[in-house]
């Protein structure tokens, strides 16, 4: 048994990395909570949240070459993109729709992440469209390696494409076609399915007749694995193995992280009509942040003093981000006309 534990890739993570992971999960949660508060105060038009998914997202981010490998995320991936280098101020700018907002110059709704310099591909609202595009990114990686345009071992270049979506979105044909391409060409591709049991109100049973999305991977010639998505290190381990397979040219992996969204689907949703308060409360006890906090405390890596320090720092960062975004100007009306075409 002991050997198995030591074989876990996360066992090699240094204390400073574990603490950075924890910090990013906590920061994401505090940014997210502020966004809900701003919405309640009528200061912002819309928020869609990642609360509950932070473990899955930060675990995945740390397992790839952050800021270098391609990531094509979805709207719930706040903690993921913070781990890739997006800042709380960037995100606040998008909540308020301010001039030169980082992802879209305030053309898109918030949480439509994207940054060329971090190799985060700009996403749209129609679900699952990113999956076959990520297969195309992975195809390009393999193509460039085969054509001698890049060195396969050059870690300054993207060596895999990671894309994320919810379990409900795997009902889309886009998901099927993307998975199929990844399988046919055995691409350096990772599909992270953040299974939170609901697609707005529709439970998983209404989307598929199998208990695990991961079971469907085999049909595409893709390796499928599911993990406890509220265990950040379990997700890290799974995505790490997937990434190493991708880097070695051994093909695509689907990682299903089983998790839960502890808040309504978005600021426009009321989840009381489709799930019980008891169910939500049960899941709140399995919160990935509390769980990691306990683990790190038990291991003596995190101390109450340091936790306080993190909370203070998170609050200050969120305040600063909010103030910066509130103070920033709106785009000019005619900015709507720019960048329809690339020159």
């Amino acid at each position, binding site marked *: 048994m002991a050997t198995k534990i030591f074989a876990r890739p996360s066992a090699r993570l240094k204390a400073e990395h574990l603490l950075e992971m924890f910090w990013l999960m906590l920061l994401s949660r505090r940014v997210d909570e502020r966004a809900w508060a701003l919405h309640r105060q009528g200061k912002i038009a819309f928020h869609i949240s990642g609360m509950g998914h932070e473990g899955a997202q930060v675990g995945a981010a740390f397992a790839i070459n952050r800021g270098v490998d391609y990531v094509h995320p979805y709207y719930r991936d706040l903690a993921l993109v913070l781990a890739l280098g997006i800042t709380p101020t960037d995100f606040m700018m998008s909540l308020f729709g301010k001039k030169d907002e980082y992802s879209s110059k305030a053309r898109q709704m918030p949480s439509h992440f994207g940054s060329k310099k971090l190799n985060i591909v700009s996403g*749209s609202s129609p679900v699952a469209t990113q999956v076959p595009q990520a297969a195309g990114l992975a195809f390009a990686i393999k193509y460039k390696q085969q054509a001698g345009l890049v060195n396969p071992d050059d870690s300054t270049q993207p060596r895999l494409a990671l894309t994320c979506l919810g379990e409900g979105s795997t009902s889309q044909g886009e998901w099927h076609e993307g998975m199929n391409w990844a399988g046919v060409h055995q691409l350096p591709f990772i599909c992270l399915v953040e299974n939170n049991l609901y697609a707005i109100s529709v439970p998983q049973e209404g989307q598929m007749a199998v208990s695990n999305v991961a079971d469907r991977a085999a049909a595409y010639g893709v390796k499928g694995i599911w993990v406890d998505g509220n265990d950040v290190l379990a997700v890290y381990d799974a995505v790490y193995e997937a990434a190493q397979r991708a880097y070695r040219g051994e093909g695509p992996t689907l990682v299903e992280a089983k998790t839960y969204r502890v808040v309504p689907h978005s600021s426009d949703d009321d989840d009381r009509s489709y799930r019980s308060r008891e169910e939500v409360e049960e899941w709140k006890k399995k919160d990935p942040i509390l769980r990691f906090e306990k683990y790190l405390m038990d291991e003596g890596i995190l101390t109450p003093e340091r936790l306080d320090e993190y909370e203070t720092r998170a609050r200050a960062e969120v305040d600063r981000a909010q103030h910066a975004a509130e103070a920033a100007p709106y785009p000019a009306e005619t900015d709507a006309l720019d960048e329809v075409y690339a020159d």
Partner: protein
Amino acid sequence: MTVLTLIDAIKQAMDEELERDPRVFITGEDVGKRGGVFRATQGLYDKYGGTRIVDSPLAELSIVATGIGAALADLRPICEIQFADFIHPAFNQIVNEAAKMHYRSGGQWRVPLVIRAPYGGGISGALYHSQSVEAFFTHVPGLKVVIPSTPYDAKGLLKSAVRDPNPVLYFEPKKGYRAIKGEVPPGDYTVPIGPARVAREGRDLTAFAYGMMAHYTVLAAEQVAREDGLDVEVIDLRTLLPVDKTAILTSVQKTGKALIVHEDNLTMGYGAEVAAVLADDGFAYLDAPVRRLAGPDVPAVPFAHTMQEFFMPNPDKIAAAMRDLAEY
């Protein structure tokens, strides 16, 4: 100069672009060993191999979507949709994704993608092998839409499309693949995306067309010149999006009359936009109502020979429309 068919000019353009830039690759159904069902990629698999001439799964959405992904990663994909009729599964990826990527990322991400598709009727292809789909896409800012009618333009425009940093839809009039021949210089040249071409100069009226209908419209203009002494100017629009308003207005300023010909059905077709450009900015030039000759408003081209001929504009019908307008 060599005389090439339309399809050979298209193939030559791809061959030269593959040769020029290692980032260029082709994907689509049966494009590999088979060389495409119309043989547009014939011989390219043998020359460049399966890494660059890639048979795709039978799934148009992902042909386009993986093309988008590869373009985001700075490759230069040429995606072939076997028939334009089968582009609809990819509509979401073209309209919501490729067209909007540059805009939605504040100019950070670009999609240098070419989508080639044979379109049009008159080949007994019936409802699902005859469609003209250009109007769906000319409504979408962020896309460019190109339809050549001569081998010279086919080669030059396709090269421009491959080198363009934006998604370009390149529709090929398949009835003209072998029927249309013309001189094509060997080696590199481009025809810019944007400007229309004066295919025939004239003074009495202007006929606007593109693709197979541009070819027919020139034939019709020659016919009415011979038989009726009419001097028709023919504008081959060749780039449908962006719209070449200057070419439309300049010609009608001279002739005072406009006929628009397309085989796509009439209502909300491309001709409506040409007519609107003239109504907005060329009203003072007009000596007659703007006329449109187009396919009838039925779901698509029917199979039986009689009904197909009824659907399709042809040189005789175009000549009749020219005479009619000239008399106004």
